[in-house]
């Protein structure tokens, strides 16, 4: 039998603190994501999930702590540098460029292909591959304006736009928020499809069922602190954590 190395760590976060103006939001948050994993960052509204993502992307002015992407420190860098190093961000409010067409939105996100440290190619995306992944986008055609799409369609476009940057790791903020149940199902399929193509994902989620469908592991966040970490099975078994920090 061949001895397999455990998958290398993609993202390591240690002692992350962040502030909105004078308000201290995140307190010594720490977690990690390994290559090929889908990890859920869970918690109720206001727990600090989106703030964590924005802090990782360098979008918050005042932040402290170490963030390493594939061993490189990204904590002090600008959002564009962080994105250029292979961290993709899908914001919860989608932030589609509504004046641009579908094709143009994808073009804005385009970056060169990447390689893993062992020189094997990282997942590489083209508009064609994305249209295959999201037939809805294909149906609308590349010239549809971003502003003339439903919420669910915009959700697909915003994911596709981020994938055009060929990220090592995608931060997916609340993919199931505010879209129709049928789209939620599609999002779950999409996440699994991405995973099968070798994309690693850190998603934030309130919905336990959704997270169970797609994730390998979970961290639970409350009031800006990590309260639990473990596999999805461990979370499912831990009634205490679910009741205290997750169910409404």
């Amino acid at each position, binding site marked *: 039998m061949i001895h397999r190395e455990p998958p290398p760590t993609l993202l390591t976060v240690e002692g992350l603190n962040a502030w909105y*103006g004078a308000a201290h939001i995140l307190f010594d948050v720490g977690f990690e994501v390994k290559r090929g994993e889908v990890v859920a960052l869970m918690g109720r509204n206001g727990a600090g999930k989106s703030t964590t993502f924005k802090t990782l992307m360098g979008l918050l002015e005042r932040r402290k702590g170490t963030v390493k992407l594939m061993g490189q420190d990204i904590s002090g860098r600008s*959002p*564009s540098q962080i*994105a250029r190093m292979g961290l993709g961000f899908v*914001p919860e409010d989608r932030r589609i460029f509504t004046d*641009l067409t579908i094709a143009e939105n994808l073009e*804005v996100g385009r970056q060169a292909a990447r390689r893993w440290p062992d020189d094997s190619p990282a997942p590489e995306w083209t508009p064609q591959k994305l249209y295959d992944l999201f037939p809805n986008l294909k149906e609308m055609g590349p010239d549809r304006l971003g502003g003339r799409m439903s919420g669910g369609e915009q959700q697909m476009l915003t994911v596709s736009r981020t994938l055009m940057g060929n990220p090592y790791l995608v931060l997916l903020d609340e993919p199931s928020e505010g879209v129709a149940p049928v789209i939620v199902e599609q999002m779950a399929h999409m996440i699994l499809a991405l995973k099968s193509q070798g994309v690693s994902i850190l998603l934030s989620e309130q919905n336990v069922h959704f997270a169970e469908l797609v994730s390998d592991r979970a961290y639970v966040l409350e009031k800006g602190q990590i309260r639990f970490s473990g596999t999805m099975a461990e979370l499912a078994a831990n009634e205490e954590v679910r009741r205290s920090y997750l169910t409404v």
Partner: protein
Amino acid sequence: MSSFLVQLLNGLAGASSLFLVAAGLSLIFGVTRIVNFAHGSLYMLGVYIAYSMSERLAGGVGFWFSLVFSALAVGFIGALIEMVLLRRIYKAPELFQLLATFALVLVIKDGVLWIWGAEDLLGRRAPGLEGSVEILGRNFPTYDLFLIVIGPVVLALVWLLLTRTRWGTLVRAATQDREMLSALGVHQSWLITGVFALGAMLAGLGGALQLPREPANLGMDMLSIGDAFVVVVVGGMGSIPGAFVAALIIAEIKAICIWLGDVNFGPFSISFSKLTLVVEFLVMAVVLVVRPWGLFGRPQGTPRHSGAPEAPLRPAGKSLRWFAVALVAGMAVLPLLQGQFPYALVLSVDLLIAALFAASLHFIMGPGGMHSFGHAAYFGLGAYGAALLMKAAGLPMEAALILAPVVAGLGAVVFGWFSVRLSGVYLAMLTLAFGQIAWSIAFQWDDFTGGSNGLIGIWPSGWANNRTAYFYLTLVLVVVGLFALRRMLFSPFGYAMRAGRDSVLRADAIGIDVKRIQWLAFVIAGVFAGAAGALFVYSKGSISPEVLSVTKSVDGLVMVLLGGVQTLAGPIVGAVTFTWLQDTVARSTDYWRALLGGIILFLVLVFPQGLAGFIHDLVVKLKPNREAAR
């Protein structure tokens, strides 16, 4: 009829330059959200550089090369401005950026004066296009035909650049959401520099193309920036096709006004050719009222980066109160020193009037959140009101001083009613339009306002007609005015106004009629500005349309911004600093504008919170240390 058609063609030719300048301004605004006051100065530079180049390079090729060179050179200057100055202040409040670009206007104007001198410079005619063609039996300059073609050509090129290249796609994305763009890995500093360079280049080209049509002169910057603002606002901020259509409309309306000339309606005679000064502002006012976001624009979304919320205003602490009392007491004994400093009283009256004017502007700008670019309108209405009440109605100074602010207040009732329907840059532009309308009425109504000569011989009543007495009168009225303005900010009305500034929706939801409150704020600010104007006219003894000009409005803005928008002492500190600087600098050098601009730039870069804000922050920073030391 043929003269009418030729006049329309004339309008088309004029539209091209107008469009080029406005398109650049619109492009820059779209991406940087900076209203570039210096855009007209870039246009002026375009004319001057083209002049110098074409004088040196003889021949047909030389001339055309000069035009292209001038556009490129101005584009390069624009890029420099962005990299050296604006890049440092993107995070500063919007109005600070405006102040910085205004300082550039001053610096560039004096730079041009220094290099090219004050004389108008007549450029060469375009080689190959000197002649004219016969259209409908009239001669029409060939060069103007060329200009008519240039506008649509540039429109098409810019449109292709924006829609058919990756660069253009990124620029349009940046117009919408720069933060998201950076999170997608797009480095924006070069993108923004590029946009600024392109916008400046268009302005430079617009200027260079104008060289064979009119002589290069130092007034071109303000004239063209006024026109360009109007075109951009009418067309819709950020819309290039909108700028094109608006440029056509405005140039044609102006052309028609010239063609109409003087028209008699029964006993009345209307001089349409005189209307050219103001007609564009009338168009803008109408468009803004009917379609507040311009013909081709879209309603502005709430900005993504609204920045930190405004800190609440605090009533003055004990030490500040004592300082204010000491200051007033100090001023009250000033006349005793008249022997040593004869000029001190004159300057003090100017300072006091400036402080009241700035405080009234601050009232709607800071706590009210409405950026008025035409506040001189109320100052001027007060000043002309006082002068005319005395000259035409024969009222004594006392009555005029009471009634003039009412006149200004009535003006504010009308202007304010329209203005509060808009917000942000559009509101600023509409107030600018009203300011210009008021100015052009005073400037052109010779029989009543004295036209460009103004009115003279407006002196105080006997008891106040000496320096000391008038100083005391001013001191008392200004201190009362400042105190009243300040008091109102801490009244329920003041709270409601600040609530409306911080969130229109939330204020509405708790039952505040935000529009009504803002309207009332406009009127109050108008009344106090009018009082300042009335005091001004009696201190000088004369008045001219100057008091209504854009420059006067901008002076007010600079004072408020210099002091700090969100501090109560700000406008006073700013007014005193600005007036004193202007006074000192103006008397010590020919290039006072450049020096003033340089000082403003320095202040903006070093104290982005304004002077009073800076002092406040400093005190806050020092305080804990003091307590710890105990």
